[in-house]
């Protein structure tokens, strides 16, 4: 199976163009809130960037190293809880708390990795799910520490003093910029990992564990490194999520739904590539956000306020927005196992081939 990245290695010349394109995209997204001030649009932007971070993070262990963890809710939840609890209980602002969250998630990942990486294939998947479930059940049970199902409600994020200005977190705008910055950093780090020796080790493990092992790659070490990187960024997303949504409880941040959604972002976009999770998030987030909160379409003026569509969606889909995830993953697995990115790439290749064929074919036909 060809899983060459669209950006970089193997398609020389695209590397620089690709980087410029990414920078242009980030710049465009950065000035975007100057023109569009609707909270709904900014909200969707934040959710989109969060999904990109989650997808990129999972991609390191699932896409490059080929270990399908369906238990990433463990790291997401640890990130969310650590950041939230440090702020609520010890008044430590999230921009410091997040580092503790990342450290916690990496320690947890080493613990989980050293247990589950002895298993392969479906057994690894089952083990990763059960570890996340153990943590969720423990978080529900040990109320003295985690407050159980009650969870934590955010009281207030203190203003951030930066370069002589103070930033207040009352509107969606600061969250939008923070999420955009985090997503850009995540993508940059992922790109570097993929193009480093480390990235090649990961891919060797994915393609053939035993062959990689016999070439001297220490499987246990490099799988754990991949998981630690992945866990760090997932915790980053989790901590940000807690500050943005302002509420954490075990069933939402440690739930199996989170783990599954993280995997689906990559699967639907295209696994093992930088662009894949970005495309996956761009497909999934708008669909599920519209189903979750159709009133936003009224707010931005696409639909009239009395639209029957809005009331229908609201009445029916409020909780069922995961339906699109389900339908998309079934369609992707059956018809496009390389994801949306794979479809795009195949189409480009087909068009090129046809053009080349037409160019070469015409004189032959004339002769």
């Amino acid at each position, binding site marked *: 199976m060809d899983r060459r990245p669209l950006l970089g290695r193997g398609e020389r010349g695209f590397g620089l163009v690709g980087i410029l394109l990414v920078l242009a995209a980030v710049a465009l997204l950065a000035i975007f809130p100057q023109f569009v001030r609707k909270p709904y649009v900014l909200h969707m932007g934040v959710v989109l960037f969060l999904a990109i971070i989650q997808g990129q993070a999972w991609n390191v262990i699932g896409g490059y190293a080929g270990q399908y963890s369906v238990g990433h809710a463990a790291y997401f939840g640890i990130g969310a809880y650590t950041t939230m609890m440090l702020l609520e209980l010890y008044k430590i602002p999230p921009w410091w708390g997040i580092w503790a969250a990342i450290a916690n998630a990496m320690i947890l990942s080493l613990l989980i990795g050293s247990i589950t990486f002895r298993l392969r294939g479906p057994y690894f998947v089952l083990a990763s799910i059960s570890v996340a479930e153990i943590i969720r059940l423990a978080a529900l049970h040990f109320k003295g520490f985690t407050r159980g199902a009650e969870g934590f409600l955010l009281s207030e994020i203190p203003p951030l003093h930066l370069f002589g200005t103070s930033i207040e977190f009352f509107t969606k705008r600061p969250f939008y910029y923070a999420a955009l910055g985090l997503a850009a950093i995540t993508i940059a780090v992922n790109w570097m990992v993929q193009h480093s020796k480390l990235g090649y080790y990961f891919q060797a493990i994915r393609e053939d564990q035993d062959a990689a092992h016999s070439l001297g790659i220490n499987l246990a070490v490099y799988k754990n490194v991949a998981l630690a990187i992945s866990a760090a960024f997932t915790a980053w997303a989790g901590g940000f999520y807690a500050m943005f949504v302002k509420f954490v409880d075990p069933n939402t941040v440690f739930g199996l739904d989170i783990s599954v959604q993280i995997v689906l972002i990559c699967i639907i976009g295209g696994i093992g590539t930088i662009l894949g999770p970005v495309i996956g998030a761009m497909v999934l987030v708008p669909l599920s956000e519209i189903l979750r909160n159709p009133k936003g379409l009224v707010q931005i003026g696409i639909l009239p306020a009395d639209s029957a569509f809005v009331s229908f969606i609201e009445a029916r889909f409020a909780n069922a927005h995961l339906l699109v*995830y389900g339908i998309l993953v079934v369609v992707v697995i059956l018809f496009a196992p390389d994801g949306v990115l794979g479809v795009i790439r195949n189409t480009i290749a087909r068009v090129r081939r046809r053009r080349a064929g037409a160019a070469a074919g015409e004189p032959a036909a004339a002769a």
Partner: protein
Amino acid sequence: MTVFLQSVLSGVLVGGIYALIGIGLTIIFGVMRVINFAHGELLMLGMYATWIVFTAIGLDPFLSIVIVAPVLFLWGAFLQKVFINRVLNALPQNQILLTIGLGLVMSNSIMLIFTSDYRILTTSYSSSSFTIGELSVSQPLLVAFLITAAITAGLYWFLLKTDTGQAIRATAQDRDAAQLMGINVRAMSVLAFGIGAALAGTAGALISPTYYIFPQVGGTFTLKAFVIVVLGGMGSVVGATLGGVLVGLTESLAAVYVASGLKELVVFVAFLAVLLFKPAGLLGKTRA
């Protein structure tokens, strides 16, 4: 001592139903080598089917099996023919993701139709119980256990004594060899998924008088079904039967002697331990 016996008793009763769920999953895995992550959702569909039949024509949940099981059999056969059959040779992770997707579609579709409200199916005997000595026995659970035992016995007979049953077992043992012997392995796969779905649906019908019915109820049962099947050794029907009872017992003892909120956690910890130290299952028969 009474507490201990009481929890053993209720553990075995619940475990019988778990066994039914596990057997369905293990038959599917045995024949197709596909782990069905939508197994709990099939059980959930069984619960809703029972609820519909009960509210529409007042049919007793235990009697409704005669309707629910065939309906779920057809649904399972349909799923196999249309979806699962296409990924039989795909990567295991793609098979897993496909069944996860099917599960999401099922639970969210049910949510669209019935909303996410919890529903209760109240029968005259839902909370009735009787006592033997100092032990109290929940009547609906006992009836469910007896029906489960009868179905399991029937299934053993079917798999061991009938030609079709032997063909299913042969397919599970060696798909290629079975095909060479003239067994229609495609038909066996459809049949196996149908039986697995019917068993999950039946389990759903049996627990509907005692459990809340809601669209996401399947998730926990999917996970429990894996634990049961791995404990007993993937693909082994006898193993799944024992695994089910074992999980029921562990839960009920952990609820009493550890903490009721931690009973599932104890099961998962035990599951991890088995995965690590005895990956072929407690019965320990390794299969290629």
